[in-house]
């Protein structure tokens, strides 16, 4: 544990506010995490039913189908057979997961079903981004320790379970942090180049206008923001803040629910302004964060405020000074 104490000394309470060992001591966090995983697999089974009809819309798109490497076998079959194999394998694998999620082999089969579905959807012109969160989560879930229904797992099994659960949360928030970091990094580059940058007043309006033009679409609030860029400005800055610090919030369980809700609001915002609805990560924001196993009961608003990135640091500094 030498590197743990090294990190603790240099970064204060960043990492010690989330100690897997302490959560694994009690049974409740593990029980909560286990239930969330179970319902995720049930939800995936529901998704597989939806995709039975959902994949049919690809039938007219045969001419644009060019199998990527991970679905190379499709080159040897006709298109209709490929669609049927993909959607029924996904269905079967999802229900295997619903029954046998406690067993690693069941979780591996689920991952393979999602892997092939995603490969299929990514074989038309451009890659599909909607199913990436499912791909990440189903892959990481493979590494859960197997559990038996009637037995209480040992401390070391609970620790590993919670560690993998934490990695699921990290995978989802990782997506947002990558988006946020790239925005900040490029904002600095664009500012230095004398270009319009992400912190400029008209940044959001330009994004909206560019996207709506490229997709030849419109949206509920997009035209309004284009006409009044200053109204969209604080929301855009807020969204960068939420995205940039998302991965940091993994270590601040008091903020899990609030942050996840904030990120869902970003998706609602991009829908009403840019006509983009990215639902798949919202599923995980709800499942993994709204009742996070790492969130202590009876959290106070003071703790939540002090845990906020930037603002919380400022409050802590002022509090110490006063």
């Amino acid at each position, binding site marked *: 544990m030498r590197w743990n104490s090294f990190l603790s000394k240099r970064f204060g309470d960043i990492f010690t506010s989330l100690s897997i060992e302490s959560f694994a001591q009690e049974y409740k966090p593990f029980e909560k995490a286990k239930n969330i995983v179970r319902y995720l697999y049930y939800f995936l089974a529901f998704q597989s039913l939806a995709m039975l009809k959902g994949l049919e819309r690809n039938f*007219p*798109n045969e*001419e*644009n189908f060019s199998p*990527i*490497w*991970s679905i190379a076998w499709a080159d040897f079959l006709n298109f209709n057979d490929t669609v049927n194999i993909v959607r029924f394998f996904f269905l079967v694998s999802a229900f295997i997961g619903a029954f046998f999620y406690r067993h690693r082999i069941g979780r591996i089969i689920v991952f393979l079903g999602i892997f092939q579905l*995603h*490969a299929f959807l*990514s074989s*038309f*012109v*451009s*890659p599909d*981004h909607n199913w*990436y969160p499912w*791909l990440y989560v189903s892959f*990481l879930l493979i*590494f859960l320790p197997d559990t038996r229904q009637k037995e209480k797992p040992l401390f*070391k099994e609970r*620790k*590993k379970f919670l*560690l*993998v659960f934490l*990695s699921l949360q*990290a*995978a989802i928030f*990782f*997506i*947002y942090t*990558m*988006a946020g970091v*790239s*925005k900040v*990094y*490029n*904002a600095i580059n*664009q500012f230095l180049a004398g*270009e*319009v*940058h*992400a912190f*400029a007043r*008209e*940044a959001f*309006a*330009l*994004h*909206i*206008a*560019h996207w*709506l*033009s*490229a*997709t*030849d*679409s*419109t949206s509920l609030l997009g*035209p309004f923001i*284009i006409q009044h860029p200053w109204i969209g400005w604080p929301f855009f800055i807020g969204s960068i803040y939420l995205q940039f610090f998302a991965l940091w919030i993994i270590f601040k369980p008091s903020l899990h629910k609030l942050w996840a809700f904030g990120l869902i609001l970003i998706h609602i915002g991009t829908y009403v302004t840019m006509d983009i609805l990215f639902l798949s990560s919202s599923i995980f924001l709800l499942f993994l964060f709204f009742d996070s196993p790492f969130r202590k009961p009876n959290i106070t608003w003071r703790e939540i405020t002090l845990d906020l990135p930037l603002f919380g640091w400022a409050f802590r500094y002022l509090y110490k000074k006063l």
Partner: protein
Amino acid sequence: MSYNTLKVFLISIFLFYFFGGVFTSNKLNGEVYPFYHWFVFRDVPSKIQAGYAIRILEYEGKPLNPPIFLKNAYGLYVNTNMASPQYSYIVRVLGENIVRKQQEEIKRHREILERSFLSQSVTYEVVKIEFDTLDRWGTEEWIKMERIIIFNTRDKVL
């Protein structure tokens, strides 16, 4: 697998994926499956932008006057099997490959595009356009247009 080994393994996966995503983000198509960088909307579009567009000049031997932009031809001369962002992606990548003279990529993206025409006797041009981002939305106005190349679906480069 012990707890510490699992921890190191999971962190390694994250780091591997992160660097894989960053490395592949520099590829022409922006990603190499299954790595994705998630650098979405990272650049604020300039107020004055340059991009590529396609205009249909002739359809089934009849000249179109004025020529029609591809995005205005959905359902008329172009089928709607692909979503609009996919057409935008094809046009952008086609334009970039024409400028870079990447013949294989030009051929590949032309095939995808030309399959979408409702008739296979189409003459179209790839143009580079300069426009004001805020003005262009809803008006289709452009500041400057320059033809890069003309294609005919019967494979004659004019």
